[in-house]
C-alpha cells in the first residue's frame, strides 16, 4: 500500500514545511493550521495567507515513552505544545535537547525534520519540529 497518504500530505506541504497558516485581517488573529473561516468573525472575517516566523515558547510538554511503530526509534522523545510569538499554538516534537532540560516557557525555534513515513516503501513526510534557541540556531 505504498501509495497511501499521498494526496492528503501533498495538500498541506506548504503548511507543514513552512508553518504557513493564515491571519484574519478583520480581528487580527493568527491561525495555524490554516482554517477555512475565522471562528470569531465567520463570514465577516477576511483571511490572508501568513507564514509564521517559527519562534515561540513551550506551553506544555510530555516525554513520550511508548509510541507507534514509526516513532519507536526516537524513544523517549519530547512532544510539546508550542505557543508561537504570533499567539497561535501547535503541537510538535522538541529535538536537539535532553528531555530533562525542557521547561515550560523555554524559547524554541522551528527546524525541518522527518515527521513520519508510510512504511518502508511509502512516502516520507517532512515537516516542523522545534529546538531550543541557542547560538547555533542564530539566536542570543
Amino acid at each position, binding site marked *: 500500500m505504498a501509495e497511501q497518504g499521498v494526496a492528503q500530505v501533498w495538500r*498541506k506541504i506548504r503548511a507543514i514545511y513552512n508553518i504557513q497558516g493564515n491571519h484574519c485581517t478583520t480581528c487580527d488573529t493568527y491561525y495555524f*493550521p490554516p482554517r477555512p473561516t475565522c471562528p470569531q468573525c465567520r463570514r465577516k472575517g477576511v483571511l490572508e495567507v501568513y507564514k509564521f516566523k517559527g519562534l515561540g515558547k513551550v*506551553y*506544555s*510538554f*510530555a*516525554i*513520550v*515513552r*511508548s*509510541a*507507534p*511503530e514509526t*516513532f519507536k526509534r*526516537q524513544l523517549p*522523545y519530547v*512532544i*510539546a*505544545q508550542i505557543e508561537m510569538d504570533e499567539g497561535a*499554538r*501547535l*503541537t*510538535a*516534537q522538541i529535538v536537539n535537547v535532553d*528531555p530533562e532540560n525542557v521547561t*515550560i516557557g523555554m524559547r524554541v525555534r522551528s527546524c525541518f525534520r522527518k*515527521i*513520519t513515513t508510510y512504511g518502508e516503501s511509502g512516502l516520507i*513526510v517532512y*515537516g516542523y519540529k522545534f529546538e531550543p534557541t541557542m547560538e547555533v540556531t542564530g539566536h542570543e
Partner: protein
Amino acid sequence: MTDKVAIIGVGMSKFGELWDKSLMDITMEAGMLSIFDSQVRGEDIDGIVVGNMSAGRFTGQEHLGALAADMGGLGPLPSYSVEAACASGGAAVRQAYMAILSGEHDMMMVLGCEKMSDVNQTEAMNTISVAGDWEWEGMFGATFPALYAFMARRHMQQFGTTDEHMSLVTVKNHANAAHNPWAQYQRPVPLKVVMGSGMLADPIRVLHSSPVTDGAAGLVMCSVETAKKYTDTPILIESSTQAGDTLALHDRKDITTMNSVVLSSKLALKEAKVELKDIDVFELHDSFTIGEIMLTEDIGICKKGEGGKILEEGITEIGGQYPVNTSGGLKARGHPVGATGVAQIVELTLQLRGDAEGRQIDGAEKGMAVNIGGTGATSIVHVLGR
C-alpha cells in the same frame, strides 16, 4: 410524545480482554441481558442506537446498526451507529433520549460496544489517538497519553497538583471496582505500586491510564408512560446535554479546564432543576486520572485547582460527600471506548435502584454521568433520578 424518558432495563458483558468473544458476541450479551432485565419482549423494541468509536479499524466491520438488529433477531426495525470518539456511548444514550422524547420512537435499545484486543496494542493506541486531532497532533507524535500529559503538566504547574494526587484516583477506583463483578480489574492497588509504575508520557504513568478493553453495555429506554407497564421503579433521565470544544488541544485557551464540561454540566443541572449538592453519585470520565481531577473541578464539586486536595480529604470516596466512580471508573472497570458512556448509565441506574451491591451509596436518588470525547472536544452529561 412524552416529557420524560425512563430506563427500564440494563445489562453488561464482563469488561476485559475477551479472547473467546467477538464484537457481536459481547454486544448481543449486553443487549439480551438488558432485555431480560426490562422484562419487555423483543418485538416491543422499535429502534436501536449503537455507540461505537472504531469497529472499522479494530475489527474491519462498519454498519453495526444493521448487524446488531440482524444478530439480535429484532426484525426490520431502524438501527444505526453514532460516533463521538470516547463519548460515543453517551451520544447513543442521548440519541435514544431525543428520539423517545420527540415521539418518533417509544421503546429503544441502546448498545455501547468496542472490541479492542483483535488488533495489537500499537494499532489500538494509533486508533485511539484519532480521538484527538490526527492531522495536527497525532501525526506529529502526540500520542493520546501525551495530550493528557500536556493538561496534567499545566495543572501541576498552576495548581500544585502532584503525581500522588493522580495516583490516589487509581487507588480509589480500583478499591471501588473490587465490588463490581463486571469490572476489568477487581483487586485493590496500593499507592506505592501506582507511583512506582513506569511513565507512559511524563508526567502520566502507566497506572494513571485506563486500559485497552473489550466490552459492551446495553439499556432499554422508553417513555415514562410505557415504563409504568413494566416496573414500579423506572429510573428517569432528568436531563441530557452536550457541549463541544476545539478538536485540537492546542486551540484551547486554557488546557487545565474542559470548557465543554463546564457548559454541559451547568446546563444539565439547570434542566434537571437540581443543584450539584443534590446529586448523590457521579460517574466521571477518567480515561486518565488527571481527567477525573479536572472533571471534579469543572462540574463544581470543588474550585478550579482543588481537585487534588479533595482526594486527600476523601470527598470523592464511597462514604464521602461526592462519591465519584463507584463502579471503578474507566481506570478499573475498563474503557471499551464506545461502551463506556452506556456503562456509566448502567452503574447510575443500579445505584438508584439500590442494586449496587458492595459499593452502594445509601438512599441514592440522583446521579450524574459525564462522558468525554477525545481531550474534551465533546462532553455529554446525563442526570438520572428516581
